[in-house]
């Protein structure tokens, strides 16, 4: 099969034909997962206390939707992410670009950068609360911190991988720095940068939620802890599935951009 695919000259075809199928396949996966989940609870393979049946979760979802709980908390978390994600990503892009241009910077900055990435939030929670308060801004920070690193390292590698020949071409055309970035470096590094963004986008949810764990009045992190502390397992599931849905949407968004932008790579495979 794989062999056939690469020997046939009609390379663009499978993509064109497969589009509908491909778009639907994640839904199929979700359906299968729900079925498996249903069976697990139906046959009581695991206690219902630990894994509630899908129907119960659906009911809980309906309720959380109806009384606005879910919307409120998801709204908070989304709001935090929508600031933290672009913030962290842009800093990652900027510093990553700088490091790619001046490799010494990587050595100088690595202790700081790695420290940011490897310190659990509990350790600096008091600082965070004192400096940013208990409002959304501290969660924007935790999101930005967690999101920053994957974008950074992938930007470095992406920009370093730009063809030196094409750099020569741009220089010979007297292109400005900005033009070199916009017309050469960015498109050339894009596949790798987008991979970094995929990691960043899915980590963003965790970043906001973990920030909320530190101390918050609303948000999915608060909802999940509150549901857990009230032993409302179906609501825990509703909350977690909401997080996954958000992460999956962001992931899909990046995947869509990737798909659109990399026509040339698909066509030339």
């Amino acid at each position, binding site marked *: 099969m794989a*062999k*056939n695919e690469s*020997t*046939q*000259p*009609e*390379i*663009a*075809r499978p993509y*064109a034909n497969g589009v509908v199928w491909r778009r639907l396949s994640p839904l199929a996966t979700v359906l299968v997962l729900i079925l498996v989940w249903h069976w697990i609870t139906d046959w009581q393979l695991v206690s219902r206390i630990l894994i509630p049946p899908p129907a119960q979760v659906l009911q809980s979802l309906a309720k959380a939707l109806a009384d606005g709980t879910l919307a409120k908390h998801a709204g908070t978390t989304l709001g935090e992410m929508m600031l933290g994600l672009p913030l962290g990503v842009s800093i990652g892009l900027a510093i990553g670009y700088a490091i790619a241009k001046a490799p010494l910077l990587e050595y100088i900055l690595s202790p700081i950068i790695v420290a940011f990435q490897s310190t659990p939030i509990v350790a600096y929670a008091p600082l965070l609360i004192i400096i940013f308060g208990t409002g959304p801004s501290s969660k924007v920070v935790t999101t930005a911190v967690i999101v920053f690193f994957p974008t950074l390292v992938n930007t470095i590698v992406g920009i370093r991988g730009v063809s*030196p020949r094409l750099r020569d071409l741009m220089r010979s055309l007297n292109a400005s720095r900005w033009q070199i970035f916009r017309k050469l470096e960015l498109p050339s590094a894009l596949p790798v940068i987008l991979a970094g963004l995929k990691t960043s986008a899915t980590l963003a949810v965790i970043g906001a939620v973990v920030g909320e764990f530190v101390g918050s009045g609303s948000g999915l992190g608060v909802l999940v802890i509150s549901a857990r502390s009230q032993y409302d397992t179906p609501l825990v599931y509703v909350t977690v599935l909401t997080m996954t849905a958000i992460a999956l949407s962001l992931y899909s968004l990046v995947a869509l951009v990737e798909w659109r932008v990399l026509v040339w790579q698909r066509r030339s495979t």
Partner: protein
Amino acid sequence: MRLRLQQLAVSYPAPGGTLLPALGPITFDIADDEFLCLVGPSGCGKSTLIRVLAGLLQPTAGSAYCGDALIDRPLPDIAIMFQDANLMPWRTVLDNIALPLEIAGVAESERHQTVRELLPQLNLDGFELAYPAELSGGMAQRAALGRVILQQPRIWLLDEPFGALDALTREKLSLELLRLRQRSRQTIVLVTHDISEAVLLADRIIVLSRRPGAVIADIAIDLPRPRFAAMIYQPEFLRLTKQVRESIESLRD
């Protein structure tokens, strides 16, 4: 081993969902041990044809056979030299040339030995530890040629192997090719834009039309062998050259 092309045609998918006919339909045989030169206008499907014979591309219609075997995947007896040097940028010249031996499982010391013996003929001695990005265009091409030579194939598919080389090096390497072939007879399909080169080397020259390439001339070169560079001043050589040139010029628009 005989190569047979039967109603072979290739189309590529083109932007807009249409198909771009790139080659054929084309039908001809390449005899065992024949040295065939392919000439034709840029973009007429020469590389496409070579890729089909190498088993890297499935034709859209018709088929190609090597002996009795349908070519539907790369066959072990056939080696291809691509139009671009196609070296691995992370390997040194030595390791790039040695790649076929490495894949065949030859021990490191032995394959390095073999490559080092080959390097002087390629004028690449002293560059075994250079990376492809540190080579000139012609040097990269010579490394790629070295890689094919090491495969010792029965059938050689050479896509403009001397395109980036100066006249002297070109002459040296094409004569080297003839010499190799004289020791053990092989089938060679060579794409070139140089008519004198084609006449000097080939048993037969096939001229392709503009895209989609079809055979417009099939000229037997019955110059005696062994051939040598000075032959290009012989009248018979000039006649053949003129014949090929004329069939190409008939394509002028």
